[in-house]
Structure formats: C-alpha cells, structure tokens
C-alpha cells in the first residue's frame, strides 16, 4: 500500500503542495491503457512520471492562457484563452482539433519566448 507523504519530501523537493502525487495514479493508468491497443503492460513508475509531467503541462498551458486573458484586460480565464494558447504554441499542435471542435478562438495570437503576446490582425 502506498504510504502517504512517502514521495512528497524526497522527490518533489517541496514543490508539490498537493500530497504525494498531484494526479491519481490509477486514473492515469486507465488513460494510458485506453490510448492504444498496443499498450499491454505498464510499469509502476510510468504513471508517477505522468503525474509530474501532467502537472507541468497544466501549469504551462494555464500560464500561457492567462497571458491571453490579461491581454484582453480580463480576470477570468475562459476556454477561448486556452484555445488561443494551444494554437499559439507549436508543441501543443496535437491539441488543436480538441480545442477547436466546438469553439473557434476569436483571435490569432502568438506567445513568444519572452511570454509576450502578439495579436495578429
């Protein structure tokens, strides 16, 4: 049985404040299993890696979306801001269809490496 707090001090170095893992390992394992028929067995460490990586991913996407929120002089992060952040970031290309299915981002924005937003007209 996993011990609560077993990882938080040693591995996260105090960065994570949400307990041993920020995302539940069993759920991550389920998502991994469903991703492809090829996936047969998953080592115990893989969901742990994803728990951390997903946290970083969510942080990155949130930060970039928030920049667009601020550009619009708003204080509420909307789904369109997330969509714009996805479209503006090359490495998030795999998400473009996901965020534009029911919703099209109104503005074409670029977020450069200095985290500045350049709105294309």
């Amino acid at each position, binding site marked *: 049985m996993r011990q609560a707090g077993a990882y938080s001090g040693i591995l996260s170095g105090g960065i994570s404040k949400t307990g041993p893992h920020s995302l539940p390992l069993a759920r991550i394992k389920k998502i991994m299993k469903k*991703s492809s028929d090829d*996936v047969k067995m998953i080592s115990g*460490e893989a969901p742990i*890696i994803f728990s951390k990586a997903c946290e970083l*991913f969510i942080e990155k996407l*949130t930060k970039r979306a928030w920049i667009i929120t601020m550009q619009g002089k708003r204080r509420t992060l909307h*789904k369109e801001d997330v969509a714009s952040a996805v479209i503006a970031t090359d*490495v998030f290309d795999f998400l473009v269809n996901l965020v534009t299915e029911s919703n099209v981002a109104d503005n074409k924005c670029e977020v450069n490496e200095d985290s500045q937003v350049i709105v294309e007209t």
Partner: protein
Amino acid sequence: MDMDEHVKLVPIANVGRIMKQILPPTAKISKEAKETIQECASEFISFVTGEASDKCHKENRRTVNGDDVCWAFSSLGFDNYAEAMLRYLYKLREFERQRANQTKGSNDEDTDEAASESENQEITTT
C-alpha cells in the same frame, strides 16, 4: 465532462487545484476553461503513451516503462519535460532502491509498485 464513456479524463478537481496554484490569487477560472484543460491534459497522457507504446511494440517489449515515457517526451518535442522527468525518474528509482534495501529480510509484498531496472518486474494492468 465525460461525453464519451470510453474517454477517461484526469479528475477536474486536481486540474483546478494545479491551475489555482500557478495563477495569481485574484484570478478566476471559468468552468469550461477547467474542462478544456482537463481534456488537454488527458489527451497529453494518451498522445505520449501512444508514442512510447509504439516504441515498445517495435522493440518487442511488453512493458511501457519510465524510460519509454521520457523518450516519447523527447520524440514529440517536449524536450524540457524529457530532461526534467529523467532526473525525476532516477530520483524515484533511487528512492525505491533505498526502500527495498530497508525492507530486505522482512516482507517483500509491498513492492508491486516499486520501480526496478530489471526486466523481470513487469506490472500487470487490469
């Protein structure tokens, strides 16, 4: 929001918590924004796993391990995650090694989730 019962998503409460931690205290997050990021995070896991699993399949290995996941990060352009997660993986394995050494001589039942460099420790998923 599970529109398709075949699609598994990371819990929205966890997503919201992570988002809150990174945003200024006065920031507000719409429910739809949380749901969108929930879907994106889940797709991220799926996408990377698919790539890692392809590699294992080509190399006739049955188990997707931490190295495969880190390799997939790199292969798909998430270079900074690849490096950071490799370091994390090594720390994790070191921790498990130490824990295994401490429990040596007593029960070994507790090691089903233990990371191991040996190919013999394959974890069955149900």
